[in-house]
């Protein structure tokens, strides 16, 4: 294989694919990126066996061929080469090494044969739709924080993506994540082709990669699905991931519909007050108590080891008084996701789920379980 490629193009593509590669691997080939040069240019592919990312960059290919080299190493090399340089990649006659040349720099990397490189075998993807990159970004950005990080609860380790009826004639595409303490649900009008898709759980690592790729300037994203895998195509970059093999719980059952104590706060003022009083809370507890009465809220934190803090806010509230505790970090996570100037809480009692939205009926909805304080 002999190929010449522009540094900027190679760096960008390596930047996309190398992140998939785990830093530690017991199987050596999984540390490598597959490089394949042919008439269409230089193709790159990296995998961790659960997910793979491929990208093709324009290149001058005097001699087609393929090899694999350590992904993080080649990324670091290309990153440090001079901007604007032309990089030449050439495998040795026995295929055991690959030379990288640019300007006066020369590197030899140990290579492993292409034939050993695993393929995720995407199989048939019977469901497909296209949506604006901004929409996908919104679905992910607003729900990602609620994904469970507790690994034995694998069925909550991702974003549940599914289509439902409603929202006019075309149905809705919904993203839902929960860790058992809070839940985020965002919906938008379903793109054509999304209705009828199976409900799928996209794993956390794939979510993080999608989030980075979607930030990288693609206008549209093609989503293809089977019941076991998902493939997303961003301009030139293709990410294929296994889905979580589990059943997402019937989350609708925890979204309260009868909460009638309506509390409206200035989002920014509220978040800053929560942040201030929680300064003295313990790392583990993080509980802040909201005492709400007509037109007024008192936030308080009581930490037996360090002291206490209170702050009063004017709020829009007319129902009977209520004391309720929440994890301060969860409150801040949710208020960070809200877009409006205000936050609307629908409360029931100190032991039941609370609904939080920009306003009633907003497309993003958050449910938070209280803390017993």
């Amino acid at each position, binding site marked *: 294989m002999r190929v010449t490629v522009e540094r900027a193009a190679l760096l960008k593509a390596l930047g996309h694919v190398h992140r998939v590669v785990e830093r530690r691997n017991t199987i050596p080939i999984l540390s490598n990126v597959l490089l394949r040069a042919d008439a269409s240019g230089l193709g790159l592919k990296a995998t961790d066996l659960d997910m793979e990312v491929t990208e093709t960059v324009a290149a001058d290919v005097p001699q087609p061929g393929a090899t694999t080299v350590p992904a993080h190493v080649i990324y670091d090399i290309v990153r440090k080469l001079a901007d604007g340089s032309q990089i030449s990649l050439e495998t040795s006659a026995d295929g055991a090494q690959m030379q990288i040349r640019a300007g006066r720099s020369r590197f030899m990397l140990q290579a492993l044969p292409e034939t050993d490189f695993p393929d995720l075998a995407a199989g048939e993807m019977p469901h497909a739709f296209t949506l604006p990159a901004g929409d996908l970004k919104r679905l992910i950005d607003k729900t990602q924080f609620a994904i*469970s*990080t*507790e*690994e*034995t*609860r*694998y*069925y909550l380790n991702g974003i549940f993506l599914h289509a439902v009826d409603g929202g006019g004639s075309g149905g809705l595409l919904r993203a839902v994540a*929960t*860790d*058992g*303490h809070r*839940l985020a649900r965002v919906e938008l009008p379903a793109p054509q082709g999304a209705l009828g898709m199976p409900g799928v759980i996209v794993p956390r690592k794939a979510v993080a990669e999608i989030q980075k790729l979607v930030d990288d300037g693609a206008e549209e994203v093609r989503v293809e699905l089977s019941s076991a895998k998902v493939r997303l195509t961003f301009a030139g970059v293709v990410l294929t991931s296994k889905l979580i093999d*589990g*059943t997402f*719980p*019937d*989350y609708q*059952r*925890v979204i309260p519909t009868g909460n009638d104590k309506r509390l409206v706060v200035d989002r920014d003022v509220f978040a800053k007050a929560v942040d201030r009083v929680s300064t003295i809370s313990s790392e*583990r*507890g993080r*509980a802040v108590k909201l005492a709400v009465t007509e037109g007024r809220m008192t936030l308080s934190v009581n930490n*037996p080891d360090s002291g206490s803090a209170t702050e009063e806010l004017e709020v829009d509230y007319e129902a009977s008084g209520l004391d309720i*505790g929440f*994890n301060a970090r969860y409150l801040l996570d949710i208020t960070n996701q809200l877009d409006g100037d205000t936050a609307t809480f629908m409360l029931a009692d100190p*032991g039941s*789920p609370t609904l939080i939205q920009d306003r009633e009926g907003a497309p993003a909805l958050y*449910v938070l*379980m*209280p*803390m*017993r*304080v």
Partner: protein
Amino acid sequence: MREPSDRGPPRRDPPKQLAFDLPLDPRYGREDFLVSPSNERAYALVERWPDWPDTVLRLEGPPGSGKSHLASIWATDARGWTVDAREVRGERVPHLISAGALVIEDADRGPIDEAALFHLLNLARERKASVVVTGSGPPDRWGLRTPDLLSRLRLAPAVALDPPDDALLKAVLVKLFVDRQLVVDTTVVDTLALRIERSLARAAEAVAALDKEALSRGRRITRAMANDLVARLSPDEEG
């Protein structure tokens, strides 16, 4: 409000994060019934339906031995109804029997309309309807006052489910965790099997409580958590 005190604030429980109730419905299907030496005779007899020695069959066994599960498998097969023994009342008898198959649950728990039950059993024989009656022991211990009913029930063939044996209890615990999509170490199953009451109902309660506790703590289920739970469920056993 706290009384001012020079001994410092009273000890309180630390704040506890509550968790969503994200339950998975328990599964009472045929494939979910685990057969073991403690229940295989009962299972075999239920499987033989309608080839039964009598129209009435009694299922005997302590709470949580799997009577209701087995009865519900049969009710599904036979397209019958399931009622609590206290719902068997005079005017409802012909209706209850009309499906041709009926499960009467917990006939040993508290007062029942004995005349209605007697009438029902006779009507079932007359109309060749099958009836399964569940109870924890033989009818002599149900406190019945109608001799005819007692002798009718005594004559009905009975099959006993024993408390789950060790292997069954462990298998059921594993299945309960799997049903809830929970990954646990075998030591958790061993701990529960060793320390909880030998009952399938207790096993289900323990697994549900552990699921909830782990979700609330945001942690995996460990043997220590299982030990805590068992101690909490039966505090008098400790010490």
